[in-house]
Each structure stands twice: as structure tokens, then as C-alpha cells.
């Protein structure tokens, strides 16, 4: 899933022929990699526009976070005139932001660990074992993905309320797992399918049971798949708003998604706090991604089997 092959530039006969033709001042032969000027301009213009659309909102948020509160609502486009860290200071010391941050961290970490554990074991079972209801289970995993969160919130809220879990972190962890586990189980199953079954058989003959095989042979080889799963489950929980607002009721139980909304009520929104908070919450996600991408290496199973 992470194998990025660098483009291989091969000097073809055509290219060589083109070069010699040019030397002889023959009519110019267009080489394989040549593009007309018009096409180049159009292509690069499109790419630049797409890049601008993708980056502008983020750049705007980052720039805004350094603007004083008085400047932030001005509609004329300008860069920071009077950069300040005041917004960050306020967010970190004058609000509940650190508490929300910690809550989010706990919820996301538990979602990640529980999510991976469930998705990996389920994915392995789906990949390797035959059991009654296997197809049905896989359909259920797919179908649960099809319901929008808006529809699920009310029934899940009712369940949480009956279980006495409202306003607890556990409610969020459970809700996020319902979102992340089916998808990740599918994804990991696909990854496990790429690991040759002969390795399981060799492990069985070497004396490992099913769990030992999973733990000592398959998991180490599934690192790239697990890394992606980890990142995905973390993100599922990290920035989530809808469940967080519905389930959490006291200010110091809020997670970041719910908490940041407090900065921008309908009247007198405090954009300077929101933007600073938004920049801060990208940091843990970036850290998790940094560790995850280290494991995104291709070819872990290389050499194990041939043919």
C-alpha cells in the first residue's frame, strides 16, 4: 500500500532516434516526453489552482492564529501586520483547552489501542479461518459503514444513556470503535491476505497455535497495515465533533472537537482562539503520523516465499 515506485526513465530507441535526427537538422521529431507549450501552461495552471484550493484554508487559519483579535475579522486580504503569540497564550492558559486536549488524547489513545486489537484479530479471522456466518459478518461490516453518523447518534445516545455512560470517555471510545473497527477489519483482512498462508502452516508445524502464529509471525509482517490502521483510528477519535457534543455534557469532560466549538458561539465568536486551537491540535496528529509512516515500508514479506 505504500510502495511508491520512482518513475523509471528509459532511453528508448525513439528518443535516441529523435536526438540524432535533430543533429542532422531534420524536421524536429517530437520526443516521447515532450509537451506543447499550451499543454504545459494549462497543466501547470490547473495544478497550481488545485494546490491553492487545498492549501489556502490551512494557510489562512495559521496566519489568522497569529493576528491580534482586533485584526482577525477584517475582510480585506492581508498578511499579518502585527504578529502575536497572544492567542496561543490565551488558549493555553486562560481556557479549558489543556483539559480538552488531555481528554482527547486519552479517548484517541484508547480508541487506537482497542480499535487495532479488535480490527486485527477480526481481520485475521476473516482472512484465515472458515466459520459459519463469515460472509454475513463481512456484509455487516460493510453495511454499518453506510449509515451516516447523524442517524446513529440518537440510538447510540439511548444505549449509552441506558448503560449510564453519558458524559464519560468510555462512551466516546465505544462510539468511535463502532466507526473505525469495521472499516479497519476489512482493511487489515486485505493486508493479511497478502501474507502467504504457507507461513501460517510453517508456524503450525513449528509448534505455534493460532494465536501464537498471529502474534509472532503475522503481526510483525503486517506492520504497514497496522500503522495505517493506527493512524486512521487515532484520527477518527481525535477531531470528532458530533458524538462528542452529543455525549459530553460538562465543560471539563469535553474533547477538543466539542471544546473548540465553545470558542465560536453564534454571537461574539472568538476566532482568534479557534484558529490558535486548530493549529495546536494538528500537532499530536502529526506526531502519530510521523511514527506511523516509519512503518509504511514495502517489501516486509519479501524473501519469505518464492513463486
Amino acid at each position, binding site marked *: 500500500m505504500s510502495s511508491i515506485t520512482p518513475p523509471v526513465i528509459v532511453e528508448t530507441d525513439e528518443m535516441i532516434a529523435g536526438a540524432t535526427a535533430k543533429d542532422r537538422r531534420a524536421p524536429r521529431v517530437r520526443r516521447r516526453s515532450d509537451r506543447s507549450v499550451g499543454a504545459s501552461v494549462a497543466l501547470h495552471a490547473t495544478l497550481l489552482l488545485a494546490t491553492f484550493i487545498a492549501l489556502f484554508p490551512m494557510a489562512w487559519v495559521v496566519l489568522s492564529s497569529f493576528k491580534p483579535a482586533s485584526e482577525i475579522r477584517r475582510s480585506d486580504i492581508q498578511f499579518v501586520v502585527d504578529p502575536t503569540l497572544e492567542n496561543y497564550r490565551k488558549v493555553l492558559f486562560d481556557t479549558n483547552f489543556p483539559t480538552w486536549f488531555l481528554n482527547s488524547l486519552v479517548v484517541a489513545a484508547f480508541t487506537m489501542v482497542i480499535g487495532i486489537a479488535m480490527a486485527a484479530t477480526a481481520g485475521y479471522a476473516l482472512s484465515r479461518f472458515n466459520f459459519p456466518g463469515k460472509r454475513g459478518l463481512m456484509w455487516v461490516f460493510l453495511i454499518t459503514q453506510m449509515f451516516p453518523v447523524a442517524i446513529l447518534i440518537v440510538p447510540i445516545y439511548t444505549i449509552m444513556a441506558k448503560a449510564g455512560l453519558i458524559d464519560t470517555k468510555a462512551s466516546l471510545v465505544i462510539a468511535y470503535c463502532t466507526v473505525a473497527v469495521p472499516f479497519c477489519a476489512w482493511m487489515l483482512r486485505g493486508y493479511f491476505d497478502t501474507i502467504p498462508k504457507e507461513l501460517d502452516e510453517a508456524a*503450525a508445524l*513449528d509448534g505455534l497455535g493460532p494465536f501464537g502464529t498471529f502474534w509472532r509471525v503475522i503481526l510483525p509482517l503486517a506492520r504497514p497495515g497496522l500503522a495505517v490502521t493506527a493512524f486512521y483510528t487515532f484520527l477518527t477519535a481525535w477531531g470528532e465533533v458530533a458524538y462528542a457534543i452529543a455525549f459530553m455534557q460538562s465543560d471539563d469532560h469535553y474533547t477538543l472537537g466539542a471544546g473548540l466549538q465553545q470558542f465560536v458561539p453564534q454571537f461574539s465568536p472568538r476566532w482568534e482562539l479557534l484558529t490558535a486551537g486548530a493549529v495546536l491540535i494538528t500537532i499530536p496528529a502529526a506526531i502519530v503520523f510521523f511514527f506511523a509512516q516509519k512503518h509504511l515500508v514495502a517489501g516486509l514479506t519479501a524473501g*519469505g516465499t518464492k513463486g
Partner: protein
Amino acid sequence: MSTSVTFEKATRIYPGSEKPAVDGLDLEIAEGEFLVLVGPSGCGKSTSLRMLAGLEDVTSGRILIGDRDITHLRPKDRDIAMVFQNYALYPHMSVGENMGFALKIAGVNKSDIDARVLEAAKILDLEPYLDRKPKALSGGQRQRVAMGRAIVRQPQVFCMDEPLSNLDAKLRVSTRTQIASLQRRLDTTTVYVTHDQVEAMTMGDRVAVLKDGLLQQVDTPLGLYDKPKNAFVAGFIGSPAMNLGTFCVEDGHALIGEARVPLPRSTVGALKGDKVQLGFRPEALVLSSADDAASFPVEALVIEELGSDAFLYGNMIGDDLRADHVVARIAPRSVPAKGAKVWFSIEPGRLHAFDVESGDALPTD
């Protein structure tokens, strides 16, 4: 340590299938014997081996190792080591760890593991590579690691599932000899699966030929070659394959084109109709002349000169011939030209006869 292996009416029917993949296999493998299971793809040879290893369920019947009924034991409780066709090395472990893994699981202490791994590595010339990962090895080295992983365990039985089929032709021939001599040296009962009859003939003490899940014949390589029990075994064993064809019989003679080839009296006596399936190996054909009543003409299409041998591939000329294609071994370096008409006769006593319907061998004494 070595012990015998017995299949008693062992049958495997895959779920959802009516037809058994292995049908009532009865086979006794003696202590220290090298038995080769051979047959075309889908004949059940790999399934039989996997039943022995515990990787396939046994639907009915029993499998014994020594006196121990292992039919329903887990793979790890069978004291068996297996070499897989694609080697199935653990990619995340070094060569040494791969070879010692089973011992580590079994709780053998580390110095013993190291000693046994080193010993096996010496036998297999793998000492310099013990710290490498499998991906840094060549195909032949990986194959040896897979062998090493099996011998480190000192199991009662080796199972080998086409371990040479991923090697290139030259390496396959040399590794073939190495495995055979290693097996003699370790004296461990070995069941070896291959689809390559040359491997079967060269490596096995005995060879079991399977087809469609049914055991056709078990015998020594020469036994199979000289006395095939049916037309399938006759055609499968030997390279180039035996010439097989169905011919009419008249007055105790088979009519091969213009030729009248006398049949032994016992063959004629056992005939059920007026036709017989005859088989003769390429080396049973001798150059003859048109004068000989028992010789038949062949049009040479292709001549293969191998240096030590030459093979003539041709078509029989004549009406009503079923066995159109004929292969004959001829003397090298003075071969007939392509398209030439050559007369052959069958060396007396080297004719095989089979029933047309069942394919069973008929007596030729």
C-alpha cells in the same frame, strides 16, 4: 529416531465436493525410506502429504507414524518437519532464527539451539548467512534454509512438497542429489511430493504414482519403469514417454500399419476383444528394414540430438493408425534426415500390453 509411516484407507473429501481428493490411500513407508509421491496436477499427492503433516483434515481412514495414530493430532504434536514449495521462511527473522524457531517454541535452551542450528548450517553450507534475512539470499540458499529448518528439528518424518520446483534447471539437478544424499545420511523417513517423474525416479527408494486421488502403483523406480501396472503409469514414468497406441489383433498378431507384430501367447489369451493397447519405450525400438514383416515405417519429423543420445520424433505411416506419433531412441551422430522414411521394429520382450477398456497391464511373458 526414524520411524515408519502408514496410511490406512486415508481419504480426504473437500467440503462442497463429492469426489475425494484422496481416495482410500493405503501406503506403508518403511523406517528411513525415501518415498516419492508423483502424479499429474490435481492427483492428490500434495493433499496426501498435507494430511500426513496435519494441514488437511482426514475425512476417513487413519494415518500412523510408527504405532502412533496421528490422524487427528495437531501438526505440532506429530513430530514432523515440512519443506514447502515456496519455502515459507519467516521474512522478519534471520536465517539462524528461522532454523531455530521450532526449538525456541519447544523451549529448548538457547545454547542447544545455537549448537544445532550451527550444525545444520555446516551441513548445508549456510554458515556465512546465519545473520542474514531471507530476502538477502538467492533462491538456492533459501531452499537450503528451508531444508535446514526441517533438519534442525530432528523430526521423525520429513515432508517435502515440491521443494525444487522454484529452482532453475541446473540448480534443481544438483540440489536433487544433495537432498537425496542428505536423506541417506540422516536416515529419516521422508515423503517427497513432485510432479516431475525424473525427480521421482532419481530420488526415491520407492515411488507411488497417483491419479485422480487413487494410488496407481507403488514400486521401486525400475519396477515402475519395467513393470507398469497400467497404461497410465506406463505413460507417466519415463522420459521421453512410452509410445502407447491401440491396435487390432489378428491371429495373435497386432497390426501396426503394414507390420504384423507377434504377441506373446499369454497376452492373446488375456485379451477381451480384438483390440489391444500396446506400449513400447523409445529405446525398445530398433532400426530395421522394409523386409522385416514385424517392422513399420515412420516418417521422421524432428530429430533431437543430445550428444549421448538422439531421439527421433515421427509419424507412423499407414492406414488406420491410432498411435500416430512415435518417439524412438536412435544412435547419435548418424541420424536420418528430417522427412526420411525409417523402419523400426520392437525389440522382443520389451513390449507392454494393456487392456483397451481398463488400461490394466496384460501378461507379456
